């Protein structure tokens, strides 16, 4: 099996269409940009103030005034724009971002998301996540299916919510799932796993799509 993160990032990339405005979270989601087909050009939004963000800056060629929301030196593409944080979140809440891709601590079958606080243990803050998942047209959670075996896809989130009822899709190394009013529908299963294995790794009951296909 190839690198788990690469498998997830490569599959997420297929959800993006030419011309989409996309905000990628820190970590695994950032890798999605590396797997876009040549004929798909997306416009990356960085919530600290860029529309049209380019790849990470080459070592030695950094412009210290240009960072992304993860405080890494980045570049901008031709046709880019800078703006302040009020404008940036106006773009986000206003529904002008087609998709946001981010990780999660927990997701549940109602599309509720928890990814910003573990009370008593870790209080990093929500940053822009609460605004992004409420404002973006499509919310894709890209993450490893379990946390070292512990369930992350639950019947009900146990950690405090980032937002309620916002998640559209979950993509892990085991499969592709969509949140529907009936529950979580397994649309694609990675060939390395069986339905029994993915169900065992998921607390919520999976609805197996009648059109289940192999995840590529």
């Amino acid at each position, binding site marked *: 099996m190839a690198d788990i993160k690469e498998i997830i990032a490569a599959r997420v990339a297929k959800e993006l269409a030419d011309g989409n405005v996309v905000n990628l979270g820190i970590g695994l989601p950032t890798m999605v940009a590396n797997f876009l087909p040549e004929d798909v050009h997306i416009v990356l939004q960085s919530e600290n103030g860029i529309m049209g963000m380019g790849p990470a800056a080459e070592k030695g060629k950094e412009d210290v*005034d240009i*960072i992304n929301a993860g405080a890494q030196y980045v570049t901008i593409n031709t046709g880019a724009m800078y703006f302040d944080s009020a404008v940036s979140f106006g773009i986000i809440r206003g529904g002008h971002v087609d998709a946001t891709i981010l990780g999660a601590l927990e997701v549940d079958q109602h599309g509720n998301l928890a990814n910003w606080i573990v009370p008593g243990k870790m209080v990093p803050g929500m*940053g822009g996540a609460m605004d992004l998942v409420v404002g973006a047209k499509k919310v894709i959670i890209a993450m490893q299916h379990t946390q070292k075996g512990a369930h992350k896809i639950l019947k009900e989130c146990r950690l405090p919510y980032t937002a309620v009822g916002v998640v559209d899709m979950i993509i892990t190394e085991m499969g592709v799932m969509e949140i529907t009013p009936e529950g979580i529908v397994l649309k694609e299963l990675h060939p390395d796993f069986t339905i029994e294995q993915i169900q065992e790794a998921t607390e919520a009951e999976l609805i197996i799509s009648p059109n289940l296909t192999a995840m590529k």
Partner: protein
Amino acid sequence: MKNKIMTAKEAVAPIKNGASIMVGGFMACGTPENLIDALVEKGVKNLTIICNDAGVPSRGVGKLLTNGQIKTLIASHVGLNPEVAQRMNTDVEEDKLECILVPQGTLAERIRAGGTGLGGFLTPTGVGTIVAEGKQVINIDGRDYLLEKPLKADVALIRGSVTDKFGNTTYNATTRNFNPMMATAAEYVIIGACEIVEVGEIDPNNVVTSGIFVDAIAGGEKPWQI
């Protein structure tokens, strides 16, 4: 024209213990480090700091935190500065930090509202979460929104890339972030400028913050580095 050019030390001189201070920057990119250093040297305490994040221990508002000058921190993200959690959980009463986390978009808009005379605004962000606790939920055309109130401060520390002697300011690239809103939302506004030029040298098309908002200008700010 009133002279606004002074040293960082002179510019922070009016800031008193217990002041509320907005500080521009995002992970210290676009934070006026010289003004922070002058505040550290001045040693004022019990400050309420309003900033996107807590920086890191050696940068941005992180330096004020390390020096024990912050009583309350209002921010959206503090995860990259481990001192925040340490100070929130300390048993030493005088070191104890109150940290109020606000969604980033809500923080930006609350400051904008503070500077633009609005009584607040309605946002869908935070509905159904602990951010909604104690806030009024208002339903507009079938969707729930939180009523978020404006945020103002006694002082704003702003990092300008190019500032003229009146205070007209431009912000280069992603140093802009919270700076333009903060410059409108405080009683006393200091620009820490990378470059100071004569009035008229900045194309009016490129001025983001008007000099009418600016009370003091200190030069010598340097580009930021991670």
